[in-house]
């Protein structure tokens, strides 16, 4: 059944129609036009679709759209701060942690969920937080360094 749901999307109350068969990923990309969240595998393995639901990183390909009714969702489109890049995005650029960029929105969201809960993570904690995000071009070293840098306030020039 078509159903109207209401939830907080990137800080704004949002109402929208949804079909039962829609995944959160379809709702974002097809219905709301928020294509920053990517579909890599569609089966929870790559993390390209990572979004933050009630403070936790989740795979948007594994969440039914109607399950977000009444909840709070943050996507890559919602993390700019006063028109400037989020410190994690900024650090990824400075650390050359992006090649094709397909994995980047998902990685940013995983890193943000981590730093929101744990502002001073160890290297191991960073590795665990991004273990569900596959990157086929850059590898993970630069990404880990960037996240460490962002956690420290993002000052290192590379």
């Amino acid at each position: 059944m078509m159903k109207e749901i209401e939830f907080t999307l990137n800080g704004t109350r949002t109402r929208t129609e949804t079909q039962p068969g829609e995944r959160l990923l379809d709702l974002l990309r097809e219905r709301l036009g928020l294509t920053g969240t990517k579909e890599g595998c569609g089966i929870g393995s790559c993390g390209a679709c990572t979004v933050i639901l009630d403070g936790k990183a989740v795979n948007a390909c594994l969440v039914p759209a109607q399950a977000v009714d009444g909840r709070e969702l943050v996507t890559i489109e919602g993390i700019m701060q006063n028109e400037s890049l989020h410190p994690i995005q900024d650090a990824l650029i400075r650390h050359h942690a992006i090649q094709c960029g397909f994995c980047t929105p998902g990685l940013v969201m995983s890193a943000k969920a981590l730093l929101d809960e744990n502002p001073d993570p160890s290297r191991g904690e960073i590795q665990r937080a991004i273990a569900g995000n596959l990157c086929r071009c850059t590898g993970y070293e630069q990404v880990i360094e960037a996240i460490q840098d962002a956690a420290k306030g993002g000052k290192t020039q590379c």
Partner: protein
Amino acid sequence: MLIRDYIRASSLEEASERYAAGGYILFAGGTDLMVKARGKKWYQDKTFLDISGLQELKEIREEENFLCVGAAVTLTELEENREVRERLPLLYEAVRSVGSTQIRNRATLAGNLANACPASDCIPALVTLGAQVEVYGGKGKRVIPAEQIFRECRACLRHSGMHVRTCYYSDPTEKKLILEPGEMICGIRIPFPKPGTGHWFYKLTQNRTIGMAVMNLSMTVEPDERGKARRIRLSAGGIFPRPVCLETVRGKNAGKSLREACLEQAVNAIEQEKDLLADYPYKRRVFPELIEEGLEALLPDGEEDS
């Protein structure tokens, strides 16, 4: 994704009534169901009945010597729970080895058990610890030992590699558990091991990404009053069509040491699965090695006597 409908249950009773009436499939974290619903048309006449928001299923509480984990508790919530970390370290390690952060943020322990995958990381830990499953149905609650809740599932062990998407059942609860129609899991009760009990968890994967185990091993060694190893319990994923707990007790092994008896029993058990396992020669070789490694760590020196 092709489903008839999706609804959120508003209470355990309502969920149970609907589920018993038919046409519904229980939906907790959805990390198994969403994968299957994507590729298959199995659920076009089914409604996903989401129980993840039911407060009565979200509790983790201590009751006598058990930790009771509600069916809607996620793996992340378990990982963050101090009792689990400090008093159920075997379960803690098993839970932490599941998938990724994103998966653990949604996946439930009950869903992992109900899905009954022979390569699950949590089931062998639960079976080794002697967990009990609380089941809710029309006639009220009943409790089933975890080891007795499963039926054999041979299909996926015939294929090399283990993937969530190779599960052949649209509703594994129906095919792989002994539940009556309409019965659902409402919680899992895990006894705290005796003080001094050692634990070992090992997950062998094809690569070090977030996939299912090729094999995994959960093991505990319980001491007697003098601190000497008395009882070994172990369970393994990726080998057996139905989770089993292999137990070895000191002094009951016809003169063999505890270590020898434990290994012999494990080797006999895997040899029964010769015709079933796709990667039998490999698994037959590696299984005893995994156990030896655990015993090495858990048995103090001088434990060779019978």
